[in-house]
């Protein structure tokens, strides 16, 4: 159950997979994303509500052929330049996109976690998202006749999340802003969780989400594995690193240098605080 990160990625993530690395600003599985880049995975369909700089990096490294998302940006800073470059110039490879709203994506995961083929919501009506995404349809309420938006369930081949702790059996505990992680894990065929630490007993914490070991395939211990995002109770968000990414991501050359440095560094676990 508990294995080094490179082994976990090798076992669970394959070329062509649909992969969700989830985390809503908090607990973003950055180290796992970097390992995916290092292993040179290709043709991934990347899924995430809020693709931020680690997705910019995955896209810039050529790992992805498709992105399914609802908001792609560098939070509080601006745009993702590798993402832009892929969409507008197909560099380094063409990137197909499927675009939703947050409410739509969240409900797609909920449907996926629930074993339902689709979800309904009040959403999308009147927007140009509808005409540009065949995965936004409508259903009619059989009681009131109202028309509602329908989106298909999202069931990634593999979901990757970062959490504060796991126990030795692989039960996982996270808290703070817990976002969509529970649903993303439950919706997936396979789940990889990187954690700050492994403990003997998961003492209950207010606001916790517990992912029972039976829905987790592999746990890897990666202290600092969410940096430059943060792990509530462990370290803070490195806002400066997010700002600094803007310059790195902005041109292909500086990104190339960043990428070379990453792939030249064989990593089983990453030191705390390393994010870029």
């Amino acid at each position: 159950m508990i294995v080094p990160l490179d082994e976990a990625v090798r076992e669970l993530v394959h070329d062509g997979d649909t992969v969700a690395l989830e985390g809503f600003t908090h607990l973003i599985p950055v180290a796992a994303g970097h390992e995916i880049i290092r292993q040179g995975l290709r043709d991934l369909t990347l899924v995430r509500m809020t693709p931020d700089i680690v997705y910019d990096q995955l896209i810039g490294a050529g790992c992805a052929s498709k992105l399914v998302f609802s908001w792609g940006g560098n939070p509080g800073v601006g745009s993702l330049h590798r993402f832009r470059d892929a969409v507008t110039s197909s560099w380094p490879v063409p990137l197909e996109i499927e675009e939703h709203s947050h409410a739509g994506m969240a409900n797609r995961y909920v449907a996926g976690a629930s074993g339902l083929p689709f979800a309904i919501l009040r959403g999308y009506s009147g927007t140009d998202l509808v005409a540009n995404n065949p995965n936004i349809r409508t259903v009619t309420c059989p009681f009131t006749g109202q028309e509602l938006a329908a989106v298909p369930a999202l069931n990634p081949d593999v979901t990757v999340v970062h959490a504060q702790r796991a126990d030795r059996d692989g039960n996982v505990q996270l808290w703070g802003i817990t976002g969509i992680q529970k649903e993303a894990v439950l919706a997936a065929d396979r789940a990889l969780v990187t954690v700050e630490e492994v403990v003997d007993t998961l003492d209950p914490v207010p606001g916790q989400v517990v992912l029972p070991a039976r829905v987790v395939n592999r746990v890897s211990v990666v202290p600092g594995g969410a940096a430059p995002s943060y792990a509530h109770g462990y370290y803070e968000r490195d806002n400066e690193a997010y700002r600094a990414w803007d310059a790195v991501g902005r041109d292909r050359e500086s990104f190339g240098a960043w990428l070379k440095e990453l792939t030249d560094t064989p990593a089983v676990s990453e030191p705390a605080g390393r994010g870029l």
Partner: protein
Amino acid sequence: MTTANWTSDEIMTVTAARSLRDRMSCFVGIGLPSTAANVAHRTHAPGLWMVYESGTLGTVPDHLPLSIGDGILADTADTVVPVPEVFNYWLQAGRIDVGFLGAAQIDRYANINTTVIGDYANPRVRLPGAGGAPEIAASCREVIVIMRHSSRAFVEKVDFVTSVGHGSGPGDRERLGLRGAGPVRVITDLGVLEPDPVTRELVLTGVHPGVEADAVREATGWDLVVSGDLAVTPEPTEAELSVVRSLTGAA
């Protein structure tokens, strides 16, 4: 015209803050909306109930978050709920009084674009996308937009409707099943635009001190109607400015 002791961004923020009433529930976007909501909370609206889409309900951050999910938002919230809950149980259920949005482009009918500039399939500029905005614009009782004025941003017709304002005019929101009132005010660094009650077209109803209506018309990409009853924004007070500056770190 005296020399103002405030910037155009500052009066924009203060004006937006004044639009929020005490005890309202407010769905807060990051950036300008977040600054304005936090100014309101620290001045005339101590009971403002701020919701961020990361699931933090009733949060009162002691400094401005950079992202919608900074730790400070969770630490100070009444409660933190999972993302599906904030969208389904709070936003979709119609529990939010005001949605506070930014935009890259807005048009004559207050439709909002945060997706692409140019053609969707082959965009000139790729923007971050929808996020929570389409449903914020649909389901909040009302929407306030805050953005800087320019003729590139204020256009006759947005390149992409990410979030519906007043569609193509009267009756469109009802036809689309959108339950909130939609944008009731657009606050910029030059003034305030509001939809005409009949045509639903944005008209200039206020200017900030020292700003001429013609300058606003020039910074607007359609033939902007100016209200016969044009207001001038009251100057920011010292108290308001000091709160804005303490939050934004400006001297």
